[in-house]
């Protein structure tokens, strides 16, 4: 096959895939910014409106949902990073009994699909009295095997001489971690942070099961309840709500796009 034809096919394929992926988003944007009459009627000169957004906003407690989701993803990420950093440092640089066995357990966690554990997790949360709380949604994810693994791999690439130079200068373990290891692993932290935030922002099944009140529900669950009501809510309003709930992630991705891709390349995962 000639190189020219090859390049052409790749280009056509890429565009086709991009368009297929973009279609739902494009439809959501179209309906959200037009009156309900244009939901299935595409006219280029259809009047543009932003009324759907306030309509959606007042029909369900989206402000509360936003707050819940933001609390959820930040608390998960915060605990994941602290736990992950400490565990990864121990696995990468400290010597202790049972190290390799424990690390095997951490790796095993990455091989188990979280969905398999839903029933078990629910029982645990109920025993702890955390059903229908934000902590209850986040707790099962806070010790992330992926975070520990990723950070350990990054820490292992940091030259030992840097570690030793810092210790010659009087750095304690805390200093060593905060002033040498963490800053040098910044790309990994960014990559993992983006993965974690987007995963838990979008997570649906588990929050749906473990929450049953407005006070704990995140955006995804709130949105599905809002759009599943039989009260004749219009697609334009639903899509306005969908756009609102996904906008922060979309914007975040657009802003961090470059860093996102580079971080992943540098962190050695795809």
């Amino acid at each position, binding site marked *: 096959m000639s190189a020219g034809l090859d390049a052409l096919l790749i280009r056509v394929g890429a565009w086709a895939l991009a368009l297929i992926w973009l279609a739902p988003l494009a439809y959501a944007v179209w309906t959200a910014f037009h009156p309900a009459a244009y939901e299935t009627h595409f006219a280029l000169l259809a009047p543009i409106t932003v009324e759907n957004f306030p309509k959606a906003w007042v029909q369900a407690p989206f402000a509360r949902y936003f707050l819940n989701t933001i609390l959820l993803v930040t608390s998960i990420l915060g605990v994941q990073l602290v736990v992950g950093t400490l565990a990864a440092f121990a696995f990468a640089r400290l010597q202790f009994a049972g190290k390799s066995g424990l690390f095997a357990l951490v790796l095993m966690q990455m091989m188990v699909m979280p969905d398999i554990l839903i029933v078990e997790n629910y029982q645990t949360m109920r025993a702890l009295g955390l059903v229908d709380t934000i902590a209850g949604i986040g707790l099962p994810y806070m010790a992330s095997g992926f975070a520990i693994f990723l950070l350990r791999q990054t820490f292992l690439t940091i030259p030992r001489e840097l570690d030793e130079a810092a210790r*010659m200068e009087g750095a304690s373990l805390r200093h060593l971690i905060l002033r*040498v290891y963490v800053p040098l692993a910044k790309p990994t932290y960014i990559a993992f942070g983006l993965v974690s935030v987007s995963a838990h922002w979008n997570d649906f099944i588990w929050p749906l099961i473990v929450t049953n009140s407005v006070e704990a529900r995140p955006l995804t669950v709130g949105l599905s309840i809002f759009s599943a009501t039989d009260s004749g809510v219009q697609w334009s309003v639903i899509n306005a709500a969908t756009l609102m709930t996904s906008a922060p992630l979309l914007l975040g991705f657009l802003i961090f796009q470059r860093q996102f891709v580079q971080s992943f390349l540098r962190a050695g995962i795809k």
Partner: protein
Amino acid sequence: MIAQTDIGRQSGSGPASPGAGLRLSGLARAIAGRRILDGIDVTFEAGALSVILGPSGCGKSTLLRLIAGLDAPDGGTIHLGARDLAPLPPAARDIAMVFQSYALFPHLTMAENILFGLSLRRVARVDQARRLARVVEMLGLGGLEARKPAQLSGGQQQRVALARALISERPICLMDEPLSNLDAKLRAEMRSEIRALQQRLGLTMIYVTHDQVEAMTMADKIVLMNEGRIEQEGAPEAIYAAPASRFAARFIGMPPMNLIPGAALGLTGHDAGRLIGLRAEDGRIDPQGLAAPIVAHEFHGADLFVTIRLAETPVMLRLPARTGLPADGILRLGWDAGALHRFDPVTGRRLTEP
């Protein structure tokens, strides 16, 4: 390059007994069952530049790491003056270190790298700034304070690493092959610069290298190591003049000392069965001398390095280039009786009796 400011030790970090030498005795270290160091006894005098010299794998870097406290010995003691260093962590030993790779923190600027230790120890900002200005001027690093290590040249990185060791104002400075990543010209420059700094500041410096030229040009004392043991220690001139073993004879000096079976030199008596050492510059052309064919010669400007063959043993001589070579390709080798070194052919040790 070196400005005439004095870093001294007046500014209150208060190292213990500035005149104290470092004494190692019976130091041993084995890694995974293999002996890396085997009974090291040596004293590094205060205010002197001691070079630990040896081929790679001889244990010299391990020795440095034991002194620094980055590794623990399996036996033996390390004393700084009267103080036993064994129970102390690296930072409490009053020892600074320059690493082979420089070990600069890539995420910090040059100034932050140099001040890393002082900021950990919460030295007052005013003091930090004053001491930084001093070392930066001393090492000619002015204007580069805001650069990250990646934006500095190899030579500049080397100076920053040196500055980080000097700013701590600790009395002992360890250097682990600090010049091995520089090109030849820069290496020669840094060599004399480090030596000048060490002498001006009165530092006790312990310098590890595999390069005998560095050792010869810089050292007050050379500690020559081989296979985890000290082969010989002494001033460069003393080791050169009287190497204690075959190993020392071959390792110190460029070109290495010729080692020739005594019989091949036409010696008789005890010497016939011994290994005889002859420095390249100690051989001369002598009409009454021993005839040997010329194998090769190299022109070095003032000198001519001539290789001859004496009964299957190649022997390198260093002759004045102006003398020229005999036209027939046969060199008549002569020497002074006092120039010969005698070694035991089995143990390789130097023999003192004639």
